[in-house]
């Protein structure tokens, strides 16, 4: 006779196992955030945030990296947003299935799966070497723009699709053309959703290392133009931690990164909720 567990018992065992495993996942996440903040928050003085980096990062602050991250991210967003939103508008408003739609979607999906080191290799050979832009904010920003493009396309596409069809009918029936309808009705209605995508793109850009280290370089000087080489926060943190230059400074930089990422996710989440509350 074989021993069998009854359905009730197996249900209880399964429930507890799933609960524990999910709890572990959540605890690990909170632990990572808590650990970084606990060890780094003490470093976050005004001086740390506004001072130049000295002695390879052993002394001073992280101002050059904050500025570098800011400029590269802004640059990437300025390029990727019009391309991403434009692609999404085309996908939703101008294609009705068919080959073009499939090929554009395929491109966006594949691009989303490309690992950041490949973007690093590409940005290095294409922007830095072939186009002779050197290690610069420009090269780094362009590389990141390509990297976050699929995120913006996908979220904008979902947001535009969610705008009720009747809004378009109304606009057409009032004599609006296709472009009027898109610019005055569809895009304003989809704005929170689109912004969510842009903000998630900012998050990816801020946290990225492999794709920027070979395109923007790792100079610690204050950036003076878009052709300056710069070291983003994530790259600076990586170098501090890996080369063991200064653990306290590494924790401080990581805390800044984590706080930015948390803020970005929070804003994206709130925007998404507003959007969902409006249309679903």
């Amino acid at each position, binding site marked *: 006779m074989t021993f069998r567990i009854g*359905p*009730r018992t*197996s*249900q209880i065992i399964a429930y507890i*196992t*799933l*609960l524990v*495993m*999910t709890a*572990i*996942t*959540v605890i690990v996440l909170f632990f*990572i955030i808590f*650990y970084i903040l606990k060890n780094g928050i003490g470093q976050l003085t005004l001086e740390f945030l506004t001072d130049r980096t000295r002695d390879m990062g052993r002394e001073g602050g992280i101002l050059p990296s904050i500025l570098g991250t800011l400029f590269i991210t802004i640059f990437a967003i300025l390029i990727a947003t019009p*391309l991403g939103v*434009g*692609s999404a508008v*085309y996908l939703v408003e*101008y294609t009705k299935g068919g080959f*073009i739609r499939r090929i*554009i979607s395929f*491109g*966006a*999906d*594949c*691009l989303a*799966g*490309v*690992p950041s*080191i*490949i973007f*690093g*290799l*590409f940005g290095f*050979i*294409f922007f830095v070497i*072939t186009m002779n832009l050197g290690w610069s904010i420009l090269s780094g920003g362009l590389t990141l723009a390509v990297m976050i493009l699929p995120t913006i*396309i996908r979220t904008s596409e979902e947001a535009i699709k969610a705008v009720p069809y009747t809004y378009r009918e109304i606009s057409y029936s009032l004599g609006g*053309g*296709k*472009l009027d309808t*898109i610019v005055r009705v569809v895009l304003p209605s989809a704005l929170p959703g689109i912004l969510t995508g842009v903000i*998630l793109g900012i998050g*990816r850009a801020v*946290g*990225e290392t*492999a794709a920027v*280290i070979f395109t923007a370089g790792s100079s610690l000087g204050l950036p003076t133009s878009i052709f300056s080489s710069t070291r983003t926060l*994530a790259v600076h*943190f*990586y170098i501090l*931690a*890996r080369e063991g230059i200064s653990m306290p400074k590494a924790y401080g930089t*990581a805390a800044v*990164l*984590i706080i930015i*990422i948390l803020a*970005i*996710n929070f804003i994206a*989440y709130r925007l998404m909720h507003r959007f969902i509350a409006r249309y679903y």
Partner: protein
Amino acid sequence: MKDKIAEKLLLFIAFSAILSLSLITFFIFQQGIPLIFKAGLGNFFSLRWAPTRGGFGILSMVVGSLMVTIGALAVGIPFGLAGAIFLAEFSSSTIQKTLKPVIELLAGIPSVVFGFIGIVILVPFIREIFGGPGFSVLAASIILGIMILPTIVSISYDALLAVPKTYREGSYALGATKWQTVVMVLLPAARSGIVAGIILGMGRAIGETMAVIMIAGNALKIPGSILDSVRTLTSTIALELGYAAGDHRAALFACGSILFLIIIFLNIIATRITNRK
């Protein structure tokens, strides 16, 4: 008139993604593929990596990448599926609404932060408990496993939610418990979505770079156990690109080409599976 111009312009813009992908493919291959033929396939798939002295063998790194990826899946699949099933079937909508963004937040944490946590917590822990250097396949697998969790959770969760309600009702009507319904009805019905999630997670694990460099030890040999140091394709590229020149640089692009092919292959499979409904 205005509308026509706008349409043409948007069509042009819409090709930006596929154009970028083509440019990436072209430049990575153009830099890397010639070297594979120059060195010869025998050399390329050997164990000897000495790119400044004519040794272009990537075998140990390919094996290394595979090992950490399999390790990551071993960690990520059970926890990811457990999370997805718990969220989709065993929790109230309030819990779902709170936990899903929390788990997705994991995806937003930069990979260098995961690597750093690996260095300061996981590696010393492994060194204490199991001995060895700590920088190991095991450390890399655990960290990568955590990193791919959000991908697996959120895609599997969506797949489970997409199973028609009538399936659940049918199963309950026959007297099945929730867990029996999950195992016998929901998981099979959501199979293709779950597999797609796992494949995409796999792609993330293979492609991850910074976290792996920080905790895998990067020794150039095939690891004998999971406590040994390991080096992946991605680590090699990132570690050496800064100073490589000539054939050495080309060899790194060759590594990139192989990686790129693997990723595109995985993506195509995942797209196929999700579109097959």
